[in-house]
């Protein structure tokens, strides 16, 4: 064997070894392949979700924009963080890596959140068991499911998935997720529409959301046109959307991409015109708030066959300017004294 063939053989052996190791980990690990931005653990979430959303928490909290706006009273800190803190005592900014929410379960206003990160399960379990939140617990699928307010309206629950995941939300959704996980089922793959939409999410996004037709069924079908009253013929009819995909990043500017699929190209064009109209209307308010004028350049709307794509890029300074409370208008000048009175 020549030295060249030895090199090629060694390289092939290295690749084969790596592949064997990887496949071994894949087969032995209960985690299965991820779909789009969805981590493998999230495939156990219920299939009857209307929408899925995810947040890369590490990226979110590391962003200067988050540091500027989320802290302090009235900040933009996500509600899910507050709920998580109350229920488990964990610090989301420090301990959580990723947050996935499956909402609209079975067409109801219920959801399940999967929190991935590094947690001390024992301490969290003890905190819940000794806390005063009226939690009961039971064993399911080899793990403990903590149920809150059982018997009072819709019960909620919390459970641990392996060493790095917490699932919390409606009791039915949590139990379904735990059972799927225990049986090694990728339940969410049963929702072909959402799985298909997930494959279109831009990889590496800080936050994303996909929703199917049923999520959008409750959207208003028309909005009042200029100078029209409710129900009048001058109302603008909004075309029906069949799916919605949102992706976004915080740095270096806040960028949001919204892709809505309409029923046909004409409906998409119609919807794009409506959105452009709203942006133009907002820009017209520039006399009251000059920052609004920048909106027109920050937002662009385009159509691609039956899809409408809204792209927004907001520099951090613009967001700060828009969020800043309106400065009180200067007091009207004192009327000039009547010269005749001075005499």
């Amino acid at each position, binding site marked *: 064997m020549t030295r060249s*063939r030895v090199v090629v053989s060694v390289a092939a052996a290295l690749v084969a070894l790596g592949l064997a190791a990887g496949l071994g980990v894949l087969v032995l690990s209960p985690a299965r392949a991820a779909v789009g931005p969805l981590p493998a653990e999230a495939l156990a979430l219920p299939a009857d979700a209307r929408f899925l959303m995810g947040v890369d928490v590490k990226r979110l909290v590391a962003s200067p924009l988050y540091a500027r706006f989320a802290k302090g009273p009235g900040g933009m800190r996500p509600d899910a963080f507050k709920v998580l803190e109350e229920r488990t005592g964990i610090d989301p900014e420090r301990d959580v890596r990723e947050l996935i929410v499956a909402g609209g379960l079975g067409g109801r206003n219920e959801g399940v959140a999967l929190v991935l990160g590094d947690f001390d399960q024992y301490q969290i379990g003890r905190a819940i068991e000794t806390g005063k939140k009226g939690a009961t617990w039971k064993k399911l699928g080899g793990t403990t499911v903590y149920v809150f307010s059982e018997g009072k309206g819709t019960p909620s629950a919390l459970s641990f998935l392996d060493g790095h995941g917490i699932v919390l939300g409606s009791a039915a959704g949590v139990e379904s997720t735990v059972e799927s996980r225990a049986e090694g089922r990728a339940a969410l793959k049963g929702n072909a529409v959402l799985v298909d939409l997930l494959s279109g999410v831009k990889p590496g996004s800080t936050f994303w959301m996909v929703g199917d037709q049923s999520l959008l069924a409750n959207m208003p079908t028309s909005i009042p046109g200029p100078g029209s009253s409710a129900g009048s013929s001058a109302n603008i009819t909004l075309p029906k959307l069949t799916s919605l995909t949102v992706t976004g990043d915080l740095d270096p500017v806040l960028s949001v991409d919204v892709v809505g699929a309409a029923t046909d190209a004409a409906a998409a064009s119609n919807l794009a015109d409506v959105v452009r109209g709203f942006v133009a209307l907002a820009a017209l308010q520039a006399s009251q708030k000059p920052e609004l004028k920048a909106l027109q350049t920050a937002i662009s709307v385009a159509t691609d066959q039956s899809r409408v794509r809204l792209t927004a890029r907001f520099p951090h300074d613009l967001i700060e300017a828009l969020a800043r409370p309106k400065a009180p208008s200067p007091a009207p000048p004192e009327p000039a004294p009547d010269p005749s009175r001075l005499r």
Partner: protein
Amino acid sequence: MSAQASVAGRDTSRPLPFAAAARGVFDLTLEGMLWSRRSALMAVLLGLPVVLSLLYRVSLHARMPRLTGYDLYGVLVAIYYVRNVVPLAALFYATSLIADEVEGKTLTYLLTRPVRRSSILAGKLAAYLATTLSLTLPAVVASFFVLTTAEGSAGVGARVPDLLRDLGTIALALVVYGALFTLLGVLLRRPMIPGLLFLFVWELAAHLPGNMPRLTITAYLRSLVSHRPAQEGLAALFERTLPAGESILTLVALSLALLAAAVAVFSSREYVMEQ
């Protein structure tokens, strides 16, 4: 014994069988290709991500919490390998398969042997693929494991399908760019400049709106990398992900067409060696 007689059981009036001839050319070319300055440079370029991955693990991981190991792996595969270094490696190696023989005036020795021209090209292409795959794939596998285990080994299993897909994409990139640059190599006397223009000017059309990306190779390859990093600016505005099935079919069909063209040109062209 007449000239028509067989030597060691072979009919010398006929060329060597295709496979045997291609294998002979493969051995000869591989030896020259693998132990060359070009390969030393390419080994450094293609192996650089392994060094960067180790650096990330040792030092950068703690300092850059916003950049996860998997994100960096995505950047390395989609931007470093698939967009830049793999096409460059294909350009350097594949354009020189025949051009170097012409330049060194050694093509005559090959062409006067009792072998078909198609087997010469096949052997050289096989040597090119063996060399580039040997230099690239181990580096990708090593980078994958170093980077995806940076936050612990829990998520590695779920990422393995991405590794398989990446290895396939890189191999396909080497095949399709190799076929293209082999054709340039047999067509042109100085194929390097047109090749560079193709890579770094024409391929930018992948970021344009409409159907322009379909006229590039990189748009199809990019669509096969599922964990590529998010784009910014114009690229983000117009970025289109082409369907995976369409991308693979197009790349395979393009490779076959370009290889067939290269074989046809090489088989019929008369090479005049300058004295």
